[in-house]
């Protein structure tokens, strides 16, 4: 079964390569355009995701980064349409192979979920059912989506567990018998159960030890290579992203403020927020000083600031930033940033 899948994957990959050679860009697998997801709460409408565009190419891994509460997870859940009952996609399209995931019927979506797009949920400690055997939990989507009997499903579970580096006999154990890193591996096995093409990993290494973190990231990278997956990695840790992703998008208050290849975004950031965020990480190879920090708090998503949303915390902000919202404009090849600094020269600061 795995071999068949691998072969078909190879074929697809060859096709993609041929297409690329033929001159066209790699055809995006997933295209998100103008996505707006809002939550209705007692205090008002929370605009958690407010106009987000990105594309995910075949075999690409894209990182979504930002402070907590900036809408990363909501964006990911919107793709799967797994939002809580008060959340709604109010605008935008999510195009996956001609299907608009934002609007297609639930039944159709169910056929895409897990078989085509799956998710590794945040917090492996809580995402597993404590009273069910690990093997049964992984088998659940296999039985449901691949329409196979229990025996075949359990065989597949064994393969999946070996794939993520767990002995197949441990399928009979319960989640509490696994350590944090092992549970994360189980979550990954579960996400891979139906051979998806896109895996969304929501903070896959947060709350894990550094060494286990490195193990899990290495595993994800290996799986991505071997199974030719496309991946959306959500994390607040930019250095993790820099190690594993091809391109990354920085989100702030429900919007993408910068997008591009990891190299461009990291080494040649064009948005003050990106620079601040990168500067906030202590560098073990750098000087022994406290890193910089971004003063202030994330703005309320009910009444986001007018103009550029980052202006209240931005050290370069001037009047234009309050008056007009900057668009996500190209600043380099495949590198976009939403900042007035890139398009206009700021007025000289008056000397006090």
């Amino acid at each position, binding site marked *: 079964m795995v071999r068949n899948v691998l072969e078909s994957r190879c074929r697809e990959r060859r096709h993609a390569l041929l297409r690329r050679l033929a001159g066209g860009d790699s055809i995006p697998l997933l295209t998100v355009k103008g996505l707006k997801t809002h939550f209705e709460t007692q205090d008002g409408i929370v605009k958690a995701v407010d106009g987000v565009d990105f594309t995910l190419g075949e075999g690409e891994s894209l990182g979504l980064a930002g402070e907590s509460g900036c809408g990363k997870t909501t964006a990911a859940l919107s793709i799967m349409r797994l939002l809580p009952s008060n959340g709604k996609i109010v605008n935008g399209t999510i195009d996956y192979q001609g299907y608009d995931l934002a609007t297609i019927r639930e039944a159709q979506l169910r056929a895409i979920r897990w078989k085509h797009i799956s998710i590794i949920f945040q917090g492996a400690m809580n995402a597993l059912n404590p009273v069910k055997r690990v093997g049964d939990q992984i088998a659940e989507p296999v039985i449901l989506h691949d329409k196979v009997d229990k025996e075949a499903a359990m065989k597949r579970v064994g393969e999946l567990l070996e794939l993520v580096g767990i002995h197949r006999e441990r399928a009979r154990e319960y989640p509490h018998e696994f350590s944090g890193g092992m549970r994360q591996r189980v979550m990954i096995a579960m996400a891979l159960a139906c051979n998806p093409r896109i895996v969304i990993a929501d903070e896959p290494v947060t709350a894990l030890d550094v060494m286990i973190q490195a193990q899990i990231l290495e595993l994800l990278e290996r799986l991505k290579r071997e199974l030719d997956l496309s991946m959306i990695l959500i994390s607040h840790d930019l250095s993790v992203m820099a190690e594993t992703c091809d391109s990354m998008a920085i989100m702030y208050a429900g919007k993408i403020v910068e997008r591009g290849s990891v190299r461009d975004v990291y080494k040649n950031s064009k948005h003050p927020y990106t620079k601040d965020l990168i500067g906030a990480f202590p560098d*073990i190879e750098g000087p*022994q000083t406290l890193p910089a920090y971004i003063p202030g708090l994330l703005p309320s998503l009910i009444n986001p600031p007018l103009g550029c949303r980052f202006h209240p915390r931005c050290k370069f902000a001037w009047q234009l930033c309050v008056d007009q919202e900057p668009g996500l404009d190209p600043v380099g090849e495949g590198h976009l940033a939403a900042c007035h600094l890139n398009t206009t020269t700021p007025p000289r600061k008056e000397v006090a």
Partner: protein
Amino acid sequence: MRAVDGVSFDVKRGEVLCIVGESGCGKTTTGKALLRLVDTTEGDIFFEIPEEEYRRYETMRSRGGPERAAQTDAIRRKYSFSWKEQLAWDTRQILTVLGAFAAAFILGLGLPALAAGLFRAALVNSAFLLAASLLCGLLIGMAGSLPPTRISARTPGMLGLLAILAVNLFPLLAAKEFPTSLPTASADLFGVWSAVWGPGFFGMLAGIVLAPAAAGGASKILLGRRRETEGLQAIKMRTLRRRLHLIFQDPYESLNPKQSVFEIVSEPLVVNRIAHDPEEIAALVGQSLEDAGLRPAEEFVLRFPHELSGGQRQRVSIAAALALQPDFIVADEPVSMLDVSIRTEILQLMMELREKRGLTYLFITHDLSLAWILADRIAVMYLGKIVEQGTAEEVISHPKHPYTQALISVVPSPDPRHLAKRTILKGERPDAVNIPGGCRFHPRCPVAFENCGWSADEVAEELKSLSTAGVLPGIAQMEAQNPWTVALAVVPGTTPEAFIETFRHVVKEHRDSRRALKAIAGVRARGGYVYVKLHQGSEPRLVELEPGNTVACHLVTAPAEAPHALPA
């Protein structure tokens, strides 16, 4: 389970020491033990010990001997707050205490008895009885509390009981010796007793209350004086807790959701009876909140934890810790739950407070890059032991222990060159209940060698995996015979000699990738079986390379004895 097993470090005033390690390595337990939130099984935690006293303690401890033990105990009693009186009494102490008691009895009984003999009818005089009981109680209380006795909470009670015994014996003895002192002489002991104590209320009071109270009181006062001069144990842990404080990891769980910020911050003040006056409390709370960066304080005092952001909550935790003006703070992963953008603010606040209030920090973290920017010194822990300790510069820039090297190599970094240097350790840390022998790190160590403490079980496991992989054919059965020998039975059709030939070859080829094979010292056939002998391992000592820089690894220090195999 040995969560923390033989850890030694010191933190100097105003210093930041970081303890780094994977979760479950005993970092948090160490931090808690420092504040006696977890009781230690063994070892000492010295607080404010003068340098020369500590050096004296160290030299005496290293030399050993019963006399020195007594002297080290004296130092431990004075400065260590994990000190517990648990040693057996020695003969000299028992004899002195018995002597003191005898003297007290003789004085406390003999003197009044003598007086009773001289003054007729003194035994039924209440004033005399009271005075005699008081004297008796005081003497016993004092004699029982002077130096050779141990300072213990039970002593006053014991002495009180002794005093009851003494004052009740005294009239009996007196009546026997000087029968004339009793107006109505009775023959039997009970008759005498009731003749003395029976008639008046004062007698009862003296015998039952006054003497033991005098003994207990005298003993309490004396012991209290002795405690002040001799021991820290005595200064109750609660007073010490004012000066040592803890900041917990998770600001979402460490604050009581039903308490307002004011209640949270003022609680330590009330509990420790620092302030009683509501206005004074309010002023102190306001001051701590402002120091912790929650300005203006009035805006925050009435809020509840759920109305605060993560960073603000952690600031409340810090404010509560600061309220008592502590000297020493154990910060257990104070920023790991916070967003990156807020982290630095909290760290900066902590460092500012260090300057402003002269605080000393023990910082517990799993993040080496955080340790690098914060610490003056770093201690790396693995499975309850410190494997490397030194200044931040020494540990991060020139790590010597393979575990430290691996930890540093996996710190995520945007630099692609960094990826190539990564050493990802296999597996997870072993269970603290079942700690590997020799060096605890050897099963995961990428550079482990002969003497790192491989056991026959581990080698047998490795041989088994080679055998199942088909690399090493011909094994029928395998067993760890003793800790340094593995016995093998070869399959029929193969001679042990031929097997040994392939065995040697395979081991030679694979010993660099499968480190357990390194432990094989020799292989020999005997009686149709093949015996694999192993090198003997040992636990590496913590060696001081330079003052303050210690490492526990055989690679740094050659094992004391030359490697040799034991006979099969």
